[in-house]
């Protein structure tokens, strides 16, 4: 197991390398940071060239990237072009709000989705199932930005229950977490229902029923545990999606996290900063996927990694 984990961690370096190459390349292709830094038009061409040299932007892409990689290996993510501060310091300030938001959203999703999924599957084609499926359907189809704005209109502007944006009070977390949590909630509920229905029709469940076990024991001890594998997979995938969804949600709610920061970094063509944010997010996703694979082995004793 340990060997497996270390091999996966080594592989993640390759993933991170690929991610940073793509991010740096895409940003450099799409516009010149110097033109944005000196957009006032008072700087002459010579001053622009000088700044480009100082920032190392005059070098060929490969050299720029190697410079970055050399620093990154030593833990130095470089300096932000626009903040004139170290990338690690800037990114460090934004990790906690994002983890708090996506963690709460995920928790919220699981707490709602698991009972909804189980009820839907246990009572197929009843009103409970319909309600559960409607909720899942709604959650999967509604766009994040629309949902966020509607929640603000109803719960902040009309009812005044929650602050409309920012992170100044404890209850500021509620609306963004609900917004961000709805999609994973819908997906988890749907997958859980489908996989439970399949399991409930399996031979061993019929056997369990025929032994005269109570519905609760059949569901919880026999069916749910076996239905969890695909659910755990989708949870892992959703966590990555959450970090992406955080870009929209954090912008709508002015939540001071990584998503908010990356929008600003993209607008300013701040390559070092964006590379820092994306590398961190990619790393978190890799870790989550690894955790899911390890969980498989815990959930299903037949799975063994050698």
């Amino acid at each position, binding site marked *: 197991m340990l060997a497996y984990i270390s091999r996966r961690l080594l592989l993640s370096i390759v993933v991170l390398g690929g991610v940073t190459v793509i991010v740096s390349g895409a940003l450099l292709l*799409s*516009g*010149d*940071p*110097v*033109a*944005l*830094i*000196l*957009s*006032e*038009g*008072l*700087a*002459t*061409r010579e*001053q622009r060239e000088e*700044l480009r040299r100082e920032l190392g932007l005059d070098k060929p892409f490969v050299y720029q990237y190697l410079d970055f990689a050399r620093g990154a290996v030593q833990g130095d993510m470089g300096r932000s072009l*626009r*903040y*004139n*501060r170290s990338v690690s310091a800037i990114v460090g*300030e*934004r990790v906690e709000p994002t983890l*708090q938001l996506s963690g709460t959203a995920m*928790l*919220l999703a699981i*707490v709602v989705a698991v*009972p909804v999924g*189980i*009820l839907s599957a246990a009572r197929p084609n009843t009103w409970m199932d319909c309600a559960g499926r409607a909720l899942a359907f709604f959650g999967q189809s509604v766009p994040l930005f629309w949902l966020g704005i509607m929640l*603000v*209109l109803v719960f*902040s*502007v009309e009812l*005044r229950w929650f*602050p*409309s*944006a*920012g*992170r*100044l009070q*404890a*209850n*500021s977390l*509620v609306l963004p977490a609900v917004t961000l949590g709805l999609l994973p909630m819908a997906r988890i509920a749907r997958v859980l229902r489908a996989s439970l229905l399949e399991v409930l029709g399996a031979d061993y469940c019929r056997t369990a029923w025929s032994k005269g076990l109570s519905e*609760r024991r059949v*569901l919880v001890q026999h069916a749910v545990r076996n239905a969890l594998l695909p659910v755990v997979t989708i949870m892992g995938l959703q966590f990555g999606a959450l970090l992406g969804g955080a870009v929209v949600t954090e*912008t*709508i*709610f*002015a939540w*001071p*996290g990584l998503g908010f920061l990356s*929008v*600003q970094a*993209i*607008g*300013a*063509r701040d390559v070092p900063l964006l590379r820092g944010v994306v590398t961190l997010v990619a790393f978190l996703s890799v870790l989550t996927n690894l955790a899911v694979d390890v969980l498989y082995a815990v959930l299903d004793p037949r799975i063994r990694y050698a």
Partner: protein
Amino acid sequence: MKHTSSLLRVTGSALIALALLAPLGPSQAAPGGAAARVVLASEPRSLDPTIDTIKTSLVITHTILEALVLNKPDGGFQPHLAESWQAVDPLRWRVKLRRGVQFHNGEPFNADAVAYTVDAFLKTRGEARGWFSFVSGTQKVDPFTIDFVLSEANSNFPATLAFLYVFPPRYHAQAAAEFGTRPVGTGPYRFVEWTRGNQMRVAANPTYWGAKRPAIGEIQFRWAPDASARTALAATGEVDIAQNIPPAQIERIERSGVARIETARSLRRAFIRMNLGNGPTTDVRVRRAMNHAVDVDTIIRVLFRGRAYGRVAGFIYPGFEGYQGDKLQPYKYDPDLAKRLLAEAGYPNGFEITFWHTIGRYALDKESVEAIQGQLERVGVRARLQGMEAGAYFSRISSERVPGMNFAASAPLFMTPMYHPLIEFRNKLPYAYGANDVTTQFVKEAIAETNPAKRLRRLQNLERYIFEKHVPWIWLWDYQDIYAASNRINWKARSDEFLSFEDVSFR
């Protein structure tokens, strides 16, 4: 059905646990009405004005740091940390400084501080690079008199001092890059704290030197890039001033009962640069025709719901010295005249042209450009739109002369009628599509002219030449800045995107 209720119980208790889990953010400071709460469109990257020169950042910097001169709400400027100035000769300006001013940390404000600051602006790698490139250095005359030595004559010099925010030398040198995260200045407010992304607080400076003491005890700044979030914050009374409210959201503010709309005519002027070096727009008759083909009044009425000012003429703003008023008559919408001019120039069937523009940088930029495209179509000019995100756009149009025409909406930094000529009409500068040898020479002479009356006359001549003979732009409109202000404060908007906190009071 037994498990149903137990599942509900589990769900319920989990939700309660979740609510308890929500960690406390920083507490809301300044209880009661002592603090003014402001939401801006973007968070500063730094409060060091050599690094971050975006107006939304300077709004905050400006409460803490002060410059040698102060811009007035409707154009022009007045003495501030400098008491007076005078050109000793065209390349040397003598500036007398105010006495008895102290930085928040106790350092004295004097000629040494100004000399240090000039040096910092000249050496910066930040956005202010180039702002003072005409200054070669300073010489201290006495502790409160300093000479600025220029490398080229610049009559515009006093106006540029509005952005020479003075640093406390000892602290600035010691804090280095961190100065931008905890600045010290001479201003009416001192820096208190900045929790990244969340809020920044500044508190009244009890020993402020100015005649006008800070009117409010504390200002809390927060940021929301999304316009609907800013609108919601104002409509719920969570903030006292919200910047940049889109026209479509005005009604929500007005219906809220807790906030109102405040507006000001912005100094941001929309115009279209045409390429004078190649294509049909090399012919001045074509450039005139383009002006007559655009119906600005309709765009303002329909697209901006009346919330823009136009049609504008020339480059000197109303309220600025030298404004020529009715002497420059805006181009009239006259598609027939436009067609005749095009036919005269040899394009009876019009032509195709590339039209470069930003998407999402300025209010309704894409929509405006599309409306203009439709109007040009009517006189036979088929514009191919090249819309881009701001980053790509600026780098593209400033690194080469793009063919066709490009959309601009620029606001002057310095309160001087020289501002646009400096950027747009001097050969070789990145955005100077409208420059030729005549305009370059005009600007050069106006810069060098130290007699204010003569300089204004030169500028007015340049403006007439550009507007009537040269016609390098299609003239459009001035924007309106729209704010929401809570009903518990008295406050008025000003034209240069700064917020006047000296006049804020609680009702």
